[in-house]
């Protein structure tokens, strides 16, 4: 047993740290809040994301784990996790969680050679941003009920229907989408996986305002949108299997924990500097205990994340699936608790939006409103617990 990094990994970690320390000085203040809000919520935020994506692309850090022939470095999962850990700590954007996180791993497993050669390089270079066409108004957790259709017409599919909760659809270049190609087949059968250009005629993007007023989510409407058959990944009607195959993207949730760590450090500084009723907040035993608890949980989460990385590294995808569900629910609920504790500490100032009166640029005000989203997006905490019970414990469905 050996928890240490190799000297190369130590070196890599330093490089990552130096990169983010330098580059994040250029970040607009909205990045203080972290998360997708900073990226999607404003033009400056998005531009900084694009800038960082291209810089990371140049470094080759976006596609680290890919085979060399697609522009990757055949790096280990551990290397990737180190990168994600550092990036999470500094709150750096530049990694398209859809393109890098989901599309690319899917293509690597399920696409034709030709498709890989076409679609992977722009992702690796940070030049093309994706969004995710999965949820529909009547299919949130239950993706098998999807009803957006695609009908073949010569060399194209023609798509009609609606997607929802599409983060960043108003900014993305491309979308990966699950559509129903066979109406006879039920549930998860009869679905097909396509890539489509967001500039295609017939696409309408309608913003959905988040609770705090920011614009991250969208509804996307499809009115006779044509997608070349050549953009289908895998076989027709096998879209469900295609999505299931792409589980070998990095699923450790490490970024949540390193981001937490940074937040805790900020709060420690805050409570030492801030007096209330004549005493530094840091002297309040309740605050000490709460921050200590969160710091402990963050250490625990970090250990968990590296363990998942190790399982993935060894190829234990089945066990890793349950562990990844566990990490997701543990991580997002921890992040939520941290926001709530931070809000308690800030007291009356926790309610203040980004302004001259707001500590941390209003981070806790906005995160107070969007932290629940983490427990919902990407599989609700309820679904994750079901999966842990079914996969991890073998309980009956």
């Amino acid at each position: 047993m050996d928890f240490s990094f190799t000297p190369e990994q130590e070196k890599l970690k330093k490089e990552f740290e130096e990169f983010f320390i330098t580059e994040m000085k250029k970040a607009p203040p909205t990045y203080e809040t972290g998360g997708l809000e900073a990226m999607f919520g404003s033009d400056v935020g998005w531009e900084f994301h694009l800038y960082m994506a291209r810089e990371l692309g140049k470094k080759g850090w976006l596609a680290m784990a890919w085979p060399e022939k697609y522009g990757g470095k055949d790096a280990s999962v551990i290397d990737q996790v180190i990168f994600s850990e550092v990036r999470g700590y500094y709150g750096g954007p530049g990694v398209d969680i859809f393109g890098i996180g989901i599309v690319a791993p899917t293509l690597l497993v399920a696409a034709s050679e030709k498709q890989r050669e076409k679609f992977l390089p722009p992702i690796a270079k940070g030049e093309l941003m994706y969004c995710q066409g999965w949820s529909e108004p009547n299919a949130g957790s239950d993706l098998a009920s999807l009803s957006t259709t695609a009908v073949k017409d010569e060399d194209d599919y023609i798509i009609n229907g609606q997607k929802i909760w599409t983060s960043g659809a108003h900014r993305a270049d491309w979308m990966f989408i699950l559509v129903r190609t066979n109406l006879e087949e039920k549930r998860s059968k009869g679905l097909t996986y396509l890539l489509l250009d967001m500039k295609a005629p017939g696409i309408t993007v309608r913003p959905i305002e988040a609770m705090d007023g920011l614009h991250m989510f969208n509804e996307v409407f499809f009115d006779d949108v044509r997608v070349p058959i050549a953009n289908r990944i895998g076989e027709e009607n096998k879209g469900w299997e295609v999505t299931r195959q792409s589980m070998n993207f990095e699923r450790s949730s490490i970024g949540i924990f390193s981001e937490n760590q940074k937040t805790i450090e900020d709060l420690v500084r805050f409570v030492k500097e801030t007096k209330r009723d004549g005493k530094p907040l840091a002297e309040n035993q309740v605050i000490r205990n709460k921050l200590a608890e969160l710091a402990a949980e963050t250490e625990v989460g970090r250990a968990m994340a590296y363990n998942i990385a190790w399982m993935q590294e060894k190829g234990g995808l089945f066990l890793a699936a349950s562990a990844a569900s566990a990490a997701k629910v543990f991580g997002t609920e921890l992040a939520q608790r941290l926001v709530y504790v931070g809000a308690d500490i800030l007291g009356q100032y926790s309610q203040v939006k980004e302004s001259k009166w707001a500590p941390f640029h209003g981070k806790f005000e906005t995160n107070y409103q969007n932290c629940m989203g983490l427990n919902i997006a990407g599989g609700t905490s309820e679904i994750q617990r079901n999966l842990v019970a079914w996969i991890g414990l073998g309980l009956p469905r």
Partner: protein
Amino acid sequence: MNLDFNEDQEILRSSAKNFLEKECPKDLVREIEESKEGYSPEIWNKMIELGWTGIAFPEDYGGYGGDFMNLIVLMEEMGRNIIPSPFFSTVVLSGLTILEGGTEEQKKEYLEKIAVGEIIMSLALYEPNGSYNASGITVSATPKDDGYVINGTKMFVNDANIADYLLVVARTEDSDNPEEGVTIFLVEAKASGITCNKVPTMGLDNSCEVIFDNVSIPKANILGEAGKAWEVIQKSSEKAIMAKCAEMVGGAQASLDMTNAYAKERVQYKQPIGKFQVIQHYLADMMIKVGTSRNILYEVSWMVGQNIPCAMKVSAAKSWINEAYKFITERGVQIHGGIGTTRECDIGLYYRRAKTAELILGDTGHHLENIAQEIGL
């Protein structure tokens, strides 16, 4: 023991409910809260016409008798159907403070003006230091000529931007005991030397920073007696806390109701999500918290209304309801799923207000420490 409301109160409740549902749909709430004024003068005028602004005061001061439980009923309904209005600032925070601490003349003058809807008022209590205690009062009122000069900054003053008058809680004397030497001044909100800026808040609730730069106030504008205001604040706060609690309980009930309805109607995996046992238990816990919140609300409000000493119970109610309302709205968002996290979904209105309400008149930590002291710790 009789734990039912009387018939008049039931009528008040249902008429308030109907009025608010009709006059203040949630789309309008969203519109109002983003407006500069942060309230609808039109609806406010209708509330005045209905006599709501006089509900908390005795007939002698232009009110309608002032049974405290009537105010509780009304606040509960205003919480159930959110209505951005200066009611709490004017009638509860300011009105009850004047009723508690004002001279007979002041009560006659200002309460009647509030009751007939002639003025909007607010209480300028908190300061940038973020304290809920007397030691937090540092805005100074220094004797000069025949009056006082006020300097300093008040924070989180709701509706100061639309107020005609402010009750400004200031320090007129330094003392080892911070509860001594505190005085309340009746101040015209537009008086020279006052700057008011809206602070953007999660609750979008007209929260203001009010800066006093050498604001001269005549001695006559002292509310009641100089130097003795902290006791007044404490007593009127008990009533105001319970009124705020009523609003919160109304909001918690509405949150439970809308979430329960959604759970019955939203289908996933071929069944309403309300059939999943985990969702049922979430909702059961929410219901238990709404129920218990209402139980403690009514008991303690009744005691406060009867002037039975119950400081511990007031803090028990506020701390419990603070946490219950946050819990209920948070679970409400979770059960709603994606749509729950959006501005267009009503549950978010309540989620935001739950946090804002906690911060008014003492957050949970503050009230737990009060309780600790009251139980002898």
